[in-house]
């Protein structure tokens, strides 16, 4: 009876499916941890003695710098958009999410191109103002530059989280502080920031996860981090043992970060106001403050989206005669891979979320944690775990072949299947969060009503839950679609032979200093992602309008 109570209203099929999914999600991590006890190589001794401290140093600067600056930028803009009205606000409201469509490594080579000796900025200064400035002021290819790139292309995570939180707050909070004679400035510092601390930190930690995962920017800028080190030891030296050690060390770092995040967020509950309270009313800005608000938000949008887009278009025009069929080819590969992977991932996420919803709070929490685990672990680390798994499988097949004469031409190493498995491990958490918040919004009573009307869990799922979840499913699907489109490290390590996505090809061209050829590919990638963002934001708006009518 007690066990039944924990599992509550479940049906066994759902639990079994969920267990299978969870098993596969955890598999790469187990593989890494088990291999911790394998013999160490000489190379690892060398890495540990001389290089590890450098990896830590660089990684820490990158995550602290971009985490802090994105928090500032994201929270500030969210406040501006939520609390004030000024020309262009409605557009900026969603346009400020668009920088997420630009993968940071593309942003990195675009900005490096803009600021280098032959780039437009220096040319302009030289030719029109006859100014030559010391190169080091323009050098973007260092830690500072990387922090800049991460901040402008990843701050929307904080912006989104904070905005969603503030939109739920009641206006009486703000009005009472205004009545108490507080200036807007001090309201922001003393009330809004502390209140939305949880949301800001949640957003920043997403930024940090992305930074930890990144391979493209640091590789292009020549900065050594855990991810580049894993790549080097695996690709460069074929030294799996060292990659595993590095992966474990990176995981320890992540555990510490997650712990600090929890500490900073604090255990306290935030008062989500109910729908009965009036939402924040925006204050109309005028005069100087209006222009300041417009200037700030439009400059961010310009730097983080417009300028990179124009530069890419310019390069793309310069490279006329660029290979159209190549672009089309990679675009199709990227599109179908992302569309297919996202479909598989959203199905998995729905299964886990439905099980979580039928279980006790404790089990639901554990399921949520496990699904998001993959997102907090850098792609390169997951790739190592999956490589280990594939090696074991290959051994198994060899064994089958040897002893039973079973021919298996099923070579799993580096197949599309493995790559999609890797995407699932990494991105299932994103889809799960969407579906789970969808379930939250629906509530329990429709499910319960269907049950008392004589429908089992599964029938209820197809007839009631699924149709009502549609908007959440679409958002989750598109979010995963964008992530897979942009994904680099997993794809680079695990892709099958001759398999190129827009992301991998653009990255390789840029890395080989063939920036013009990377431009077309990058543009197509960004347009796909931007479209997905447009659909997500505008479906939400449509629903909101429908609810208000």
């Amino acid at each position: 009876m007690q066990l039944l109570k924990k599992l509550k209203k479940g049906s066994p099929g759902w639990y079994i499916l969920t267990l299978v999914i969870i098993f596969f999600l955890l598999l790469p991590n187990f593989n890494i941890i088990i291999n911790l006890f394998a013999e160490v190589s000489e190379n690892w001794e060398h890495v540990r003695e001389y290089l590890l401290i450098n990896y830590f140093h660089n990684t820490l600067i990158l995550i602290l710098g971009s985490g802090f600056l994105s928090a500032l930028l994201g929270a500030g803009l969210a406040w501006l958009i939520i609390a004030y009205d000024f020309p262009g606000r409605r557009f900026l409201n969603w346009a400020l999410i668009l920088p997420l469509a630009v993968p940071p490594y593309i942003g990195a080579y675009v900005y490096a191109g803009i600021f280098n000796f032959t780039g437009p900025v220096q040319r302009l200064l030289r030719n029109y103002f006859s100014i030559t400035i010391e190169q080091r002021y323009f050098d973007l290819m260092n830690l500072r530059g990387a922090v800049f790139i991460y901040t402008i292309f990843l701050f929307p995570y904080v912006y989104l989280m904070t905005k969603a939180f503030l939109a739920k707050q009641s206006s009486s909070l703000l009005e009472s502080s205004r009545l108490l004679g507080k200036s807007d400035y001090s309201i922001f510092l003393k009330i809004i920031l502390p209140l939305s601390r949880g949301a800001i930190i949640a957003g920043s930690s997403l930024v940090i996860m992305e930074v930890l995962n990144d391979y493209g920017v640091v590789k292009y800028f020549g900065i050594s981090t855990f991810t580049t080190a894993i790549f080097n030891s695996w690709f460069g030296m074929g030294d799996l043992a060292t990659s595993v050690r590095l992966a474990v060390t990176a995981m320890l770092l992540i555990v510490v970060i997650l712990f600090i995040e929890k500490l900073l967020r604090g255990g306290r509950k935030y008062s989500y106001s109910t729908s009965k309270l009036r939402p924040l009313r925006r204050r109309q800005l005028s005069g100087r403050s209006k222009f300041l608000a417009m200037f700030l938000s439009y400059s961010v949008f310009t730097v983080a989206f417009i300028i990179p887009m124009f530069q890419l278009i310019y390069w793309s025009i310069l490279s006329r005669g660029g290979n159209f069929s190549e672009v089309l080819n990679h675009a199709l590969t990227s599109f179908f891979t992302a569309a297919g992977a996202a479909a598989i991932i959203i199905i998995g996420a729905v299964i886990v979320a439905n099980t979580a919803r039928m279980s006790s709070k404790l089990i639901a929490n554990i399921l949520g944690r496990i699904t998001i685990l993959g997102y907090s672990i850098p792609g390169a680390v997951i790739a190592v775990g999956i490589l280990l798994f594939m090696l074991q499988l290959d051994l198994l097949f060899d064994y089958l072949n040897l002893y039973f004469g079973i021919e298996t031409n099923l070579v799993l190493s580096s197949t599309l299947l493995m790559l999609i498995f890797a995407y699932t491990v990494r991105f299932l958490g994103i889809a799960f969060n969407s579906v789970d918040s969808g379930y939250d919004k629906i509530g329990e009573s429709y499910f319960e009503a269907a049950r008392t009307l004589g429908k089992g869990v599964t029938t209820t799922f197809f007839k009631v839950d699924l149709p009502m979840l549609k908007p959440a499913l679409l958002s989750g699907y598109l979010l995963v679609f964008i992530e897979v489109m942009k994904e680099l490290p997993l794809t680079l390590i695990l892709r099958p032979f001759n398999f190129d996505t827009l992301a991998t090809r653009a990255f390789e061209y840029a890395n080989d200093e063939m920036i013009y050829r990377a431009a077309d590919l990058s543009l197509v990638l960004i347009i796909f992602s931007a479209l997905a963002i447009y659909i997500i934001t505008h479906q939400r708006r449509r629903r909101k309008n429908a609810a208000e009518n």
Partner: protein
Amino acid sequence: MQLKISDLSFSYNKKEKVLNDFNLEINKGEVAALVGRSGSGKSTILRLTAGLEIPDSGRIEIAGKTVVDEQKFLAPEKRKVGMVFQDYALFPHLNVYQNISFGIDHLSKKKRKERTAELLELVNLAGFEKRYPHQLSGGQQQRIALARTLAPGPKLLLLDEPFSNLDTELRDKIRKELKSIIKEIGITTILVSHDKNDAEFMAEKEILLN
């Protein structure tokens, strides 16, 4: 005996027991009202009866059949207990006809049509088949929810604060209608109410929780 609850204990968490050795008997065709202060566990009793919660110990029998005890737990969809939810929980993506026929889709299409029409007649909303829940008033929504619950012919009807979402004027009207509908089909009913007057008007039997 249509419902028999014996020595039922239940808690949402380890800290406090909501119900402790609770007993209740209701005869066939009887209308009983559960009254008690807020938080005394009235809704919880309905949820346990419907199978939406699982008791710590005790037994529930419906129409002579044990639905839950130490060994057994019958899933809510197999209990033939109808429950009208406080927020009605009409499926927003289905229209009135689809909502009412939701629980009887094992019947042939013709039978389903007849049954739905009959129920709409009963709750005085004939002709509303094509409307969606958001196109109905609060009182109409409640009556559709009742019709939907009655459609599969439950052995027991549970109503959780059926009047709480209605204003006083409507309340009187709905109260009368509800009473006559229940009498007309003679279904065994438990209703939860805050209001003494409601309970006295509707029910033959009052059960006080403390």
